[in-house]
């Protein structure tokens, strides 16, 4: 744990600045040189085609961009139409793997019991495998996955003849249900985030392309979620009133 002296650190900063600066110049010069020799003709043609002009939000509201399924902006239509059946089904599916809203979900497939990081093979960026969606991690900084997530069904063989043991399925705990949506200040105001954001910083994990309808965002072109959707200070344990 050696710490460098201030002078050494300053020298390092200077040296690094020079390296970064040279790299930037090189990069800029490189991009000016046009398509590299031998690039496919189609790519060159595409690069030559005029890019569509950027439009303001006002223009988008006047003439919505063409829908690209399953993605389409609905900025001019207010909130997406509520499909109660789908929402109820989605929430029920989520609840079946959680003891209460905010509990870590159980794992709906077998895992290797002694595993460390292999969960990331599918869950790092998200994937669809034979129709099953592996959502990307919403808290990639945590690396011991099986600390919080356990298999939904027993992992081991044998033991069929055992007496029932302590009753578990009759547990009378009634977990807090997930809210169907966040509160809105008025009918088409952006809803507030109805859950805590700690360990759920990656909104797109559930609200992005792998999210279940209707939790999937209707306006994926907007990248800064918390610009419009306010997190709850109480749920995030930032409120001063909390004991």
């Amino acid at each position: 744990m050696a710490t460098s002296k201030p002078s050494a650190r300053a020298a390092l900063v200077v040296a690094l600045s020079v390296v970064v600066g040279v790299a930037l110049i090189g990069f800029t010069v490189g991009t000016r040189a046009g398509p590299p020799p031998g690039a496919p003709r189609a790519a060159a043609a595409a690069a030559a085609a005029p890019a569509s002009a950027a439009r303001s939000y006002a223009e988008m509201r006047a003439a919505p961009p063409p829908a690209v399924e399953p993605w389409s902006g609905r900025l001019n239509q207010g909130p997406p139409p509520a499909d109660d059946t789908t929402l109820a089904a989605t929430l029920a599916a989520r609840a079946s793997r959680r003891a209460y809203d905010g509990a870590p979900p159980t794992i709906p497939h077998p895992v290797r019991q002694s595993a460390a990081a292999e969960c990331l093979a599918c869950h790092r960026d998200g994937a669809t495998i034979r129709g099953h969606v592996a959502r990307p991690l919403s808290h990639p900084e945590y690396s011991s996955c099986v600390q919080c997530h356990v298999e939904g069904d027993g992992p081991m063989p044998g033991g069929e003849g055992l007496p029932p043991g302590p009753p578990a399925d009759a547990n009378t705990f009634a977990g807090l249900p997930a809210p169907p949506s966040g509160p809105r200040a008025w009918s088409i105001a952006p809803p507030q985030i109805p859950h805590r954001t700690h360990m759920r910083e990656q909104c797109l994990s559930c609200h992005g392309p792998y999210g279940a309808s209707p939790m999937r965002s209707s306006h994926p072109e907007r990248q800064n979620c918390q610009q419009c959707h306010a997190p709850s200070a109480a749920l995030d344990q930032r409120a001063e009133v909390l004991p």
Partner: protein
Amino acid sequence: MDRRDFLKWSAMAAATGAAARAAGAPPPEGLDAALAARAGDGVTWDKAPCRFCGTGCHVQVGVKDGKVVAIAGDRKAEVNKGLLCVKGYHVGLALYGPDRLTTPLLRRGDRQVPISWEEAIGIIADRVERDPKGFAMYGSGQWTIPEGYAAQKFVKAGLRNNQIDPNARLCMASAVTGFLAVYGVDEPAGCYDDLDHCDVLILWGNNPAEMHPVLFSRVVDRRSRGEQIRIIDIGTRRTRSTAHAQHFLQFRPHSDLAIANGIAHLLLKNGTWDRDFVEKNCAFRADSDPPTLDGKAITFDEYARSLEAYTPEHVERLSGVPAADIRLLGDLFGDRRLRITSLWCMGMNQHTRGTAINSLVHGIHLLSGHFGRPGDAPTSLTGQPSACGTVREVGTLAHGLPGGGVVTNEAHRRQAEEIWNVEAGRIHGKPGHHTVEMWKRFSTPGSDINTIWVQVTNPAQSLPNRPALVDPSRRDPDKFLIVSDVYPTETTRIADLVLPSAMWVEKNGMFGNSERRTQQWFRMVPPPGRARDDCWQTIAVAHELFRRGFPGMRDKDGRFLFHVTDDRGREVPIWDWKHYYDVNVDRALFEEYRKFTRAKHKDLAPYDEYAKARGLRWPVVQQPDGTWRETKFRFAAFDDPYVSKGRDIEFYHSTTKDGRAQIWFRPYEDPPEKPDDEFPFWLCTGRVIEHWHTGTMTMRVPQLRRAMPQAYLEMNREDARRLGVSDGETVRVETRRGAVDLPVWIDGRGQPPPGSLFVPFFDERLVINQVTLEAHDPFSKQPDYKKCAARVRRLKA
């Protein structure tokens, strides 16, 4: 909840009660109504330490309509910073198993029949009056601090027989004797902050990925931030922790002493020990004859000579760890630029040489100077939420007194008698029986222990060699077993009297975790049925004896031993359940207990400071401005206010009274039982992440139960092939003490090497402690659950 809140609640409760009476409904009782009123429409959140392990995470408990409905990691808690493990996230469900005990039960023939609390309290008082010397309490590292303190006072000042011992004897007694032998005072010098600063983490027979997951994450998640941490797993089987380690050093059970001596040998041979640190702060020690905890002083030369034999090659022969890996450890400890933290728990403690290996690991940290800087720490972890707070600090052991005192020391007894306001000579100087001895005597006809009152633990499942220590007592009509618990357990089923208890946030409480952090919480929901606090149960029996004129239950002024007053100085009848929550009994007991804690520099702050904090690490010392400051690094001048001016490090409770810690030499010796032709396997027992100890709580949580539905036998694939055993097949595990039938799980959660078996002890249907060995450490009296000789027999032809 501060006092104002409490008054508000009380007023609300009174108003609600009056309204209910006016409406013709039965009046709700005391605080329960206030709690119900508090819940209101939404969810209210309050802090509590987790109910399970010794890590001491804080959770936020969401309560609605008098029930726990949600849990969240507490982001203000330094221990866990908002993270929990799967048990912690589901801790709220532990309250709601369908078969909570809700009424006192008395054995009549083969049945246990409901009786009233008055009758139950009377029966216990009868048992005391019949034979006060033969009445023992068997408690727990899950007792809250006030519960343990009340039991301690009840036994040592009330019954005057010192017959109190806890289940923590089974889990961390050798850590205590290790600390005492080395530093002269118990508990770690460092804290969890070491995990944020270490460059190397050494696991000594330890699997924190499952047993202390939040602490393990605290280390491995540093890698996500680009930090480099080397993890070295010194183990007897591969575990989930191994999966995160760069090095796995597989050693033969019991040979960890050889490895530790091998490291010390290399430090001396390579000249990489920290001469300056050792000359200033250490002395050398070896076993005396006969052996005592303090041993005898030896010179540095004698120490060096004792280690000569422990060459890497010799250590390889003893331990099976390649000499090159011993050299790797020697080189790491020899490099003072690195910060090295050692972690251990049951592997080193449940060991017939537990005191010895604990002192050796402290020794290599001292010898190499890897001590007293953040990240350089020998850190012992505890398994229970208040093994430190209640057992080690309140001293609920046969020989202990609060604050680190012992009954054999007259000055300590006088101090206790003064604080308890009882006459000099009230406390006996002879220790009671340690756990194994207590139960052995309880299971011996005509012996001196006739009644045991068990609180917050499940000895029929967790004691070793149950056929010898527990079962004989159940065939003896003179032996009476009282058990306070929250669910039916292996122990309540064989009890003569069962008392239903409140658990966790159904009562006020305080815990003390593995890093000297004292924690507090308030009651948030009412207990079910007629379940009541363990602390109340103890006080109610004490008062019944007081009422009957039992002399031990009065102080020297003739007042009740648990005399608690309200703001105006009037006694509150806390023995009457209706009035138990009229005052904060925890607060009253804690303020009394706190007076003990200065003697060994384990200073605790006033109760109200803990109500505000997410725990504080002792010594908590008041500053000139009136605030209270916790201490993260003990014995180090940069943080510990009790180190003398001019010293960098001072061991101010040194056994040699000169500020020095002891570096011990202790030889490797063979274990009491090891595999032979008849019983060719090592058998190790332990835990899994999903279940907590005997599973009485976690086996009733659906998510945990489904993830880990039953106990199993881990066996190496080669052994299974040789015996013709297939995965999932039920086989019989036999030792010299008994047999258990278990399904085999190959390459499951852990992978033992050929010749080794592992069985978790959580499953009450598959009690592996039917076959374990009760052999124990000579100093700590802690049994060795980690090794005995076993064989495996196929049941199918």
